[in-house]
């Protein structure tokens, strides 16, 4: 197996809260991000996604455990030349123009002066920033800042693109464009690692995922395996097999696991007709909520009192 692009092994991190309290932001986080994969890092607000990313980017330090980037221990700042990073709600210097800023950050990424104009033109085209290159960033809306944020993250063609809530503040058109740009980056050979709590985005883009909650990774793996674990749905007419439920149109439906597929099909009652055989689609949103609730029993559900409007 190829060396993972990024790995966390038993990483924990705490920071000083009020007075002498320490807040444990991460508790033994272990992750493997394979090369050339698109990795969705899922978690609710405050779950530890941004903290993990900041540790990776060297913005936070003092963690326990081992973080490896491109197979090397974290610590050598030169490895960050191969990283692209879009922070959550990015802010930029107000008084620099888009063009100046992009050149500045490209230089800091170690690009040679000769390569910078072509690299900038590429991202101007990808993110429609060409007409804005002389505009100062203080006049930018949240969505425009996000576009510039992605531009600066990919201008130096990084091997690993780390995006913290990349779709935040974008309208539907720009969400779609961001997904296209991310797919292009992936086609170029870059590994994508992005955090989100919007599960449809992860479903659209990712082939690997991890779920983090309260600083702990609850689950990780291939998205295809997760989707593949959903039951098979058989719809038919005529005589019903055991366990089938009647549908209003006079047909019936039965659900079974992939492992039972051959046996179930072989033992259908005589005269039964198969109308449709599909894998039931997992609602990732429901799965995520159920998964997190199963561990902590908190989160999305409203308290009884709040639901009824009275005291609980």
């Amino acid at each position, binding site marked *: 197996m190829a060396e993972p692009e990024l790995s966390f092994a038993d990483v924990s991190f705490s920071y000083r809260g009020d007075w002498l309290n320490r807040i444990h932001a991460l508790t033994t986080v272990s992750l493997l991000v394979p090369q050339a994969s698109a990795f969705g890092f899922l978690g609710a607000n405050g779950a530890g996604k941004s903290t993990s990313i900041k540790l990776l*980017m060297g913005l936070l330090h003092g963690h326990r455990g081992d973080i490896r980037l491109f197979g090397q221990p974290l610590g050598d700042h030169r490895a960050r030349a191969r990283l692209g990073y879009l922070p959550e709600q990015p802010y930029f210097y107000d*008084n620099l123009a888009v063009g100046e800023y992009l050149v500045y950050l490209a230089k*800091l990424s170690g690009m040679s002066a000769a390569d910078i104009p072509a690299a900038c033109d590429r991202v101007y085209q990808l993110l429609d920033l060409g007409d804005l290159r002389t505009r100062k960033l203080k006049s930018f809306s949240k969505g425009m800042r996000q576009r510039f944020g992605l531009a600066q993250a990919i201008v130096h063609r990084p091997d690993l693109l780390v995006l913290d809530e990349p779709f935040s503040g974008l309208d539907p058109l720009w969400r779609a464009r961001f997904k296209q740009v991310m797919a292009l980056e992936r086609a170029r050979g870059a590994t994508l690692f992005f955090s989100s709590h919007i599960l449809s985005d992860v479903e659209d883009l990712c082939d690997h995922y991890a779920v983090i909650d309260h600083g702990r990774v609850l689950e990780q793996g291939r998205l295809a395996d997760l989707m593949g674990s959903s039951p098979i749905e058989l719809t038919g007419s005529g005589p019903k097999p055991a366990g089938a439920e009647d549908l209003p149109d006079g047909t019936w439906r039965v659900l079974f696991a992939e492992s039972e597929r051959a046996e179930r099909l072989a033992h259908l009652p005589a005269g039964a007709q198969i109308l449709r055989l599909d894998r039931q689609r997992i609602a990732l949103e429901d799965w995520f909520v159920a998964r997190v609730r199963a561990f902590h029993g908190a989160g999305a559900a409203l308290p009884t009192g709040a639901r009824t409007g009275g005291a609980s």
Partner: protein
Amino acid sequence: MIRTIAGATFREATRSRSFVLLLALYALAVLLSRVGGWISGTDGSTITANLVMSLQSVFGVLVAVATGTALVQSEIQQKTLYTVLSRPLPRWKFVVGKFLGLAAALVCGQAAMLALGIAYLWITGAPVTGWLAVAGALTAMEVLVMAAVSLCWTALSSPLLATVLCLATYALGHAVGSLPGLMYHLKGFQRPLCVAFASLVPDLSRFSYRDEAVHALPIALGEIVIRLAYGACWIALLVMITVIVVRRKQL
């Protein structure tokens, strides 16, 4: 890398509203300095020259503190440095580049102030000698020391507190010069305590050659070099402290 950071910092600083506004206020204050000369009743032109040279120091320090505290603290508070420090850039280079960019902006500001001040004195018929330029250069070094002070306080505290601490350091820095005279009256442990206190703050009175310059009293080249070297040492020390603080900072 350092040059790249310094270049961006220079552009950001010189385009900031506080920088431009304080330069404009300096120009206005210089124009009004003639009033001080008129109401003094004595040699009005000398008073005007003294005021103009003092204004360069006061406004220079205000620009250094306003720009210095805003530049670094906004980087931390507004998180603009996330996209910078996530690149292959060690933090010490970031701090040094930041200071050099700020210093370049302040030197340009000081040069503009000095040129405007001398031009005004020349137009109004006040005595203009080459010693004014020397005084201007020493004032510029004082402003650079204050820029390093503001960088250091900013790394250690909030922007508002850093501004207050910078202005307190400026006041103390000018008071430290009178401590040797005071020490005659001290006894026992008070004297080393006073020396220790004095050594914690840069003696900004060393950069004050304005009164002498207005009266064309010469200063030895060696003395100028010593004063500039004193300023450079303080800058190096303060930038080093800032580097240590920023390296340990959790962002």
